[in-house]
């Protein structure tokens, strides 16, 4: 067996370019998986770390509505219930005007109550004179080491911060070292009174941390006043994980794509290798090797390539993760929550997972050629043409299997409605099933090419492709899969973007928007003073002011976003997917106390005819009278009249304002007037088109990583085509030499190789187009609805199809450059006498 393995491994080293291409393809596939895995884990880890460090040793927390809880509740717990392990916390987000409005967490603690929760805040002891200003001076903060390093801040510096419509300056008193739990996150730590002042929360708390045993917790929960509730400390992390689960699953699925494409290439190479070595394998059988030994030999060859590729892939993935972490955390930042993500740590578990995936994919892909090799009869002298004839005979079987697999995938897709992973597996089956039709498609393209032109070079090229299908089919299938995914994902993104653009034009009806710069993306963070509304209404040229309050409220489905909007403006009928009556009738009911919910909330939670929300007056049931389209967040949103909101929540603050200009007043001109009126508040005034552009910029940023992933899959497929062409060239050197002997010029030979390669690209592109369209429909109609609950209108555009054609044919032609350059070195005399 050792001799067999040695022979097999030497064969790999004798084909260094082909072996290197497989290793590289697989390395890229594994790298993408590892990078996305690392990015997901880092983002999750970053959030958990900051959530845990902010929570300290608390087991439970008392929380309230959007405006927080009255300080009196704390007194009641401490004195009334005799809870000693209780600490008040004020928490909020501030923006840093001098650092491009970067958001930072502000944490206000009562250090005298923190003893049971944080033992590592000893340096801030009130008994140390240098920290006396922390307690005695307003707007004084201690920053964490990570924050200090990332902004270059030192004790004594003054840091301008924006909270809501207030611009303040915070004095930096000291730096918390990294060895404290809080030190590894980015935050401004303040005394609770200072934080209340900074965040505009005088007399109110964000939460009260508690250490409770389960029995006391149950008892306390039952006794809390209306509008206040008890939750476990781990709940927040769990909710965050649930929130981002669909997003992470989608990324992971897409990251596996490059590995799938890479597996096709392993299959390609091992099939080449087995077919080329049939006489050698036959001889080995004749001299006593068993079929099992041959099987093991081929699998060991594949395992060596896969292990090498996986090891390189893990290292490459670690490097790529640096870019991916930024993109993933930015999206989580934009859509979900603020998490300080640190550099991705490559754990042995993650590395092992990458290697196992690469090795598994490699062995699985090599299994079929290995079995074929083990069945070679002793003293096999069949030429490859016989095998090719066999492949041609198997064309129908292969195509039927493809149709069968795609059908199974389609049925599986229908059955796996609620399972995201099941949906992806079914989609993969459909994709691979269609990819199995590549040899049939090659035959069709070849027939068309032969009929279309009388040029002998085109005819030779067209004739050679289907007859070399055992060489070209896997590379073609890989290219088809990569191009189909590129078409499908591009169509999905383009359709999604167009749907969002349409939705933005229906939603953004005001001429100007005023808001806090800290309110980025979809996180409701800022609280603006309610007196802004009359102030702005008084500015000459302002026709109308609409106040919007966006908050997170507790519901029967957990914490959900709620938007309280001006009841005067009736929403467009086009915004509703389902409505009880006309748009005007729906809005009349909203004014009267009903709500409408976004489709993602409705589909995720199967919202019925009413929804229960925790108000400051206790849990209330609100009738649901419509489902509206909303793409701002996949968490879903409840929309209600602000007048109704103010009846149930003691929260007069506003989050943003929409202003309409009087007829004849230019929005840009009005924006200048509003900016002048708001001078010193730090608030941002943006005209409609700027808001729309910012929303679309966030959209594009969200899909940046998707674009990178689909490009990588095409790169891997390119290596496949290159490998296939190199192997073909090597094997057909006698044929090329014969053609040369018969008078084909060197340019003619080059044209032949480029034509063959171009036809491969054309076949893959043509097959990828309908496949991509099917994929787009599946992604849009089901995956997006299943993952995020959004309806997206499919928009057919010629560009992704043209791109597939250009990329498919272009990549194939580019792959032919090196093989044709190598042909110059072909010794005609030698090649002609090869057996």
């Amino acid at each position, binding site marked *: 067996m050792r001799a067999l393995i040695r022979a097999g491994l030497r064969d790999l080293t004798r084909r260094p370019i082909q072996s290197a291409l497989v290793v590289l393809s697989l390395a890229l596939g594994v790298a993408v998986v590892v990078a996305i895995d690392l990015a997901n884990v880092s983002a999750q880890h970053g959030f958990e770390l900051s959530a845990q460090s902010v929570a300290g040793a608390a087991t439970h927390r008392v929380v309230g509505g959007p405006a927080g809880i009255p300080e009196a509740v704390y007194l009641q717990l401490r004195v009334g219930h005799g809870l000693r392990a209780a600490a008040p916390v004020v928490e909020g987000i501030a923006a840093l005007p001098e650092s491009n409005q970067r958001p930072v967490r502000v944490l206000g603690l009562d250090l005298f109550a923190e003893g049971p929760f944080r033992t590592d805040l000893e340096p801030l002891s009130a008994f140390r004179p240098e920290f006396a200003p922390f307690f005695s001076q307003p707007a004084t903060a201690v920053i964490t080491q990570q924050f200090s390093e990332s902004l270059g801040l030192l004790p004594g510096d003054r840091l301008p911060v924006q909270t809501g419509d207030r611009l303040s300056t915070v004095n930096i008193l000291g730096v918390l070292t990294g060895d404290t739990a809080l030190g590894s996150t980015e935050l401004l730590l303040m005394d609770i009174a200072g934080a209340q002042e900074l965040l505009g929360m005088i007399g109110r708390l964000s939460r009260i941390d508690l250490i409770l045993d389960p029995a006391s917790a149950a008892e306390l929960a039952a006794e809390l006043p209306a509008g206040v509730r008890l939750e476990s400390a781990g709940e927040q992390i769990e909710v965050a994980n649930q929130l981002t689960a669909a997003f992470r699953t989608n990324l992971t699925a897409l990251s596996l794509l490059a590995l799938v494409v890479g597996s096709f290439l392993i299959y390609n190479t091992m099939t080449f290798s087995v077919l080329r070595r049939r006489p050698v394998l036959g001889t080995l059988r004749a001299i006593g090797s068993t079929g099992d030994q041959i099987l093991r030999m081929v699998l060991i060859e594949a395992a060596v390539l896969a292990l090498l590729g996986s090891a390189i892939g893990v290292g490459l993935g670690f490097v790529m993760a640096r870019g991916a972490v930024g993109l993933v955390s930015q999206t989580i930042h934009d859509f979900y929550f603020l998490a300080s993500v640190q550099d991705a740590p490559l754990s042995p578990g993650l590395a092992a997972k990458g290697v196992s995936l690469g090795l598994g994919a490699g062995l699985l892909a090599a299994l079929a050629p290995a079995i074929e090799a083990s069945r070679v009869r002793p003293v096999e002298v069949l030429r490859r043409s016989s095998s090719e004839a066999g492949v041609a005979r198997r064309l129908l079987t292969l195509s039927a299997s493809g149709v069968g697999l795609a059908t199974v995938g389609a049925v599986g897709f229908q059955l796996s409605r609620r399972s995201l992973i099941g949906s992806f597996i079914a989609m993969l089956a459909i994709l691979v099933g269609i990819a199995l039709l590549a040899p049939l498609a090659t035959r069709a393209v070849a027939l068309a090419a032969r009929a279309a032109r009388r040029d002998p070079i085109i005819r030779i090229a067209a004739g050679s492709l289907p007859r070399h299908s055992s060489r070209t089919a896997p590379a073609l299938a890989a290219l088809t899969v990569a191009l189909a995914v590129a078409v499908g994902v591009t169509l999905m993104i383009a359709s999604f973007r167009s749907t969002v653009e349409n939705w933005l034009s229906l939603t953004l009806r005001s001429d100007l928007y005023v808001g806090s710069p800290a309110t980025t993306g979809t996180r409701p963070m800022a609280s603006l003073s309610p007196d802004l509304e009359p102030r702005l209404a008084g500015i000459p040229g302002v026709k109308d002011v609409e106040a919007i309050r966006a908050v997170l409220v507790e519901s029967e489905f957990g914490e959900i976003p709620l938007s309280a909007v001006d009841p005067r403006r009736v929403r467009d009928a086009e915004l509703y997917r389902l409505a009880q009556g006309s748009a005007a009738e729906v809005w009349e009911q909203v004014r009267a106390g009903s709500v409408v919910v976004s489709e993602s909330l409705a589909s995720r939670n199967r919202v019925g005819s009413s929804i229960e929300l925790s108000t400051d007056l206790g849990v209330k049931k609100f009738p649901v009278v419509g489902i509206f389209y909303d793409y701002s967040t996949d968490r879903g949103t409840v929309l209600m009249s602000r007048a109704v909101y103010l009846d149930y929540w003691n929260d007069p603050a506003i989050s943003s304002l929409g202003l309409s200009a009087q007829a004849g007043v230019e929005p840009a001109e009005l924006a200048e007037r509003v900016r002048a009126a708001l001078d010193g508040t730090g608030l941002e005034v943006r005209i409609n088109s700027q808001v729309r552009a910012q929303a679309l910029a966030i959209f594009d940023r969200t899909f940046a990583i998707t674009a990178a992933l689909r490009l990588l899959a095409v790169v891997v497929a390119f290596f496949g085509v290159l490998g296939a062409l190199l192997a073909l060239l090597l094997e057909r050197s*006698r044929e090329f030499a*014969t053609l040369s002997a018969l008078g084909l010029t060197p340019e003619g030979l080059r044209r032949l190789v480029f034509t063959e390669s171009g036809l491969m690209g054309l076949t893959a592109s043509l097959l990828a187009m309908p496949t991509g369209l099917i994929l787009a429909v599946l992604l849009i109609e089901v995956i997006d609805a299943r993952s995020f609950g959004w309806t997206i209108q499919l928009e057919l555009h010629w560009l992704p199809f043209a791109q597939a054609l250009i990329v498919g044919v272009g990549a194939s032609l580019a792959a032919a450059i090196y093989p044709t350059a190598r042909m110059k070195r072909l010794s005609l005399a030698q090649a002609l006498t090869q057996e």
Partner: protein
Amino acid sequence: MAPLVKLEHLTKTYQEAGQTRVVLNDLSAEIERGSITVVRGRSGSGKSTLLNLIAGLDDPSSGDIRIAGELVTQMNTRRRAIFRRQHIGFVFQFFNLIPTLTVLENVRLPAELAGRPVPEASEFAHRLLREVGLDDRHSDFPDRLSGGEQQRVAIARALIETPVLVLADEPTGNLDRSAGEAALSLMRSMMREREVTVLLATHSHRIAASADIRLTLVDGQLVPDVGPPD
């Protein structure tokens, strides 16, 4: 009558394991127009090298080759390819049919490469296939044919462009005795009929016996072959 092929001080050397091996050594010879010339020699004596040099598939280390008065050794690769297409036909030991083309397509390939209209090329190819007895197999691919049949197709292909010279390198080397003799007899009669000059390389005395001119390659030089028939 001027010779068709003129070899002038032809030398071909190879570098093998750091040693220079002289295969053809200042060889000069002429091959008469319309003759069937056989070059015999042991395996590795340089027969194939000589044919490859005449065909312009390889470059001599020194010396010149003229065919029909044209200096082949001074032509670039492209010009040589066109020259081969117009003037030279080939019959190889391993037939070298293009596996992805049918019998008919293989035969008419040189005509198509020369830019002839396909109907015209097909008609001539059918005629040649009838002559070699394989017209009924014209739509088969080469892998469906026996070795002898493949070589008959190769003979038809070699004649499609009515060459002045046919180079045949061990044309029976991959055939059994009866198939080899049949192929050789067919080739001989077709070439004589068309007055095509044939240069045939073989190691067999028996094949050499039927030639007009018999030469042997010994120590890089062509000398008259006087060996007994085998």
